[in-house]
């Protein structure tokens, strides 16, 4: 299972990549592999406030809808428009083209408390 070393992770299988005071958020390879067949993404609205550990988006597979939790507190500044036409990008490219939303962090130090790649690899076994 792919677990890139330049990201931080949550217990609920989201990843975040810092770019200055903004973070790009998506779901992990492990998560997309569990879901398979993603057919719809319900992103947060640009401008919406998100809270660490609270649902921010919904990703739907053929069989079920899954909540996606924000790893950090902040404000949504961009969502991945490509997912409207091609939700399967989350399956085929979970760490790159399948990113979900970008958030301006209220408190960038929150990222330090998230899981390291080693800890996440241990979690998913």
């Amino acid at each position: 299972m792919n677990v890139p070393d330049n990201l931080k992770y949550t217990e609920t299988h989201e990843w975040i990549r810092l770019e200055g005071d903004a973070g790009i958020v998506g779901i992990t390879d492990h998560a997309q592999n569990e879901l398979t067949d993603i057919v719809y993404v319900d992103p947060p609205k640009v401008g919406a406030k998100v809270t660490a550990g609270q649902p921010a988006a919904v990703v739907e597979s053929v069989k079920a809808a899954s909540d996606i939790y924000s790893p950090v507190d902040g404000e949504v500044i961009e969502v991945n428009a490509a997912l409207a036409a091609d939700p399967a990008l989350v399956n085929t490219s979970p760490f790159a083209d399948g990113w979900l939303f970008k958030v301006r962090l209220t408190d960038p130090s929150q990222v330090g408390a998230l899981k390291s790649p080693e800890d996440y690899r241990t979690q998913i076994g």
Partner: protein
Amino acid sequence: MPEIIRRTALFDLQKSQGARCIKFGDWEMPVQFTSILDEHQAVRTSCGVFDISHMGEIFVSGPQAMRWLQHMLANDLAKCAVGDAQYTFLLNERGGVIDDLIVYRLAEDNFLLLVNAAKIEEDAAWLDGHREEGVTIDDRSETMGAIAVQGPEAPRIFRELFGGEIPSRNKALALHRCSAMVIAATTGYTGEAGFELFFPTSLAADLWQSAINAGAKPCGLGARDTLRLEMCYPLNGSDLSPDRTPLEAGLGIFVALDKPDFIGRDALLAQRERGVPAKLAALRMTEKSPPPRAHYPVLADGKRVGETTSGALAPSLGEGVALAYLPPDLAKPGQSLTIDIRGRNFAAVVEKKPLYRPSLWLPA
């Protein structure tokens, strides 16, 4: 109370082939092997194989079998000659559906009833409770397995497995394989060309693997559901229930109201007289939306008029589809409605069934 987990004879082999399993009633069954969308696509364009060993096989035989089954089942068995298969219902006294099933006439006095997995015990008890002299009921569900091979390539696979040409639709015949008897039937739950095989469980692995070797892709219950939903085939327990009649479900052509006597007849005649209180309509989403699923409210002019009984993203259509019982005047093709999907309303329209027409499809 210990949890019951039932598995078919193919479980271990399927796990080794990558099956991801879920609980389906008492059963632990593959929901997918690779991807539901890929498996669905395989059935529509080449061939897929499904394990349906969890379903029930109840044999009814004897000198009174034909007359008795005419009383127990809703469709007209006089139209079911030896070698034919017929879709029919076990109805309760109110005309509600206990189970929908296929009856295969194997001989003048020998019938195989293929029933839903979740209803095997109930169907067997119902039949047994009504049994008469001259009727033998033999529930062989525990000792038999079954697979379904479905798709445009299925006729070629039939030829490779058995050497002869596949019969036309809705037929059944007995064949031999490894000196055991296999019942082959040209029926299915996908709308595509294909066949179903019923056999002693000892043959399960051989037949499953032979179908795969001939080119059939292993498919699970996930694709089975999206395929049948596109065809608007009902699922008992979701779209059919003891409180809904086949007339409400739009399946009146499978009920022979001119038969002199069968369980549920009087209730259905009365309902036909009064008019049905609701009709099972097929809905297609007309704007981009999350997939509709079961138990979502359906609204007309902002007022709730019903609830979906089934729903999914239809892979062959690229849109969401659903079934719902609606007031008859709203169940007409062209009727605009909305479906409340987790708190937001999305536009849908009632359409004629089936929602999807396979290229090789011929009317049943």
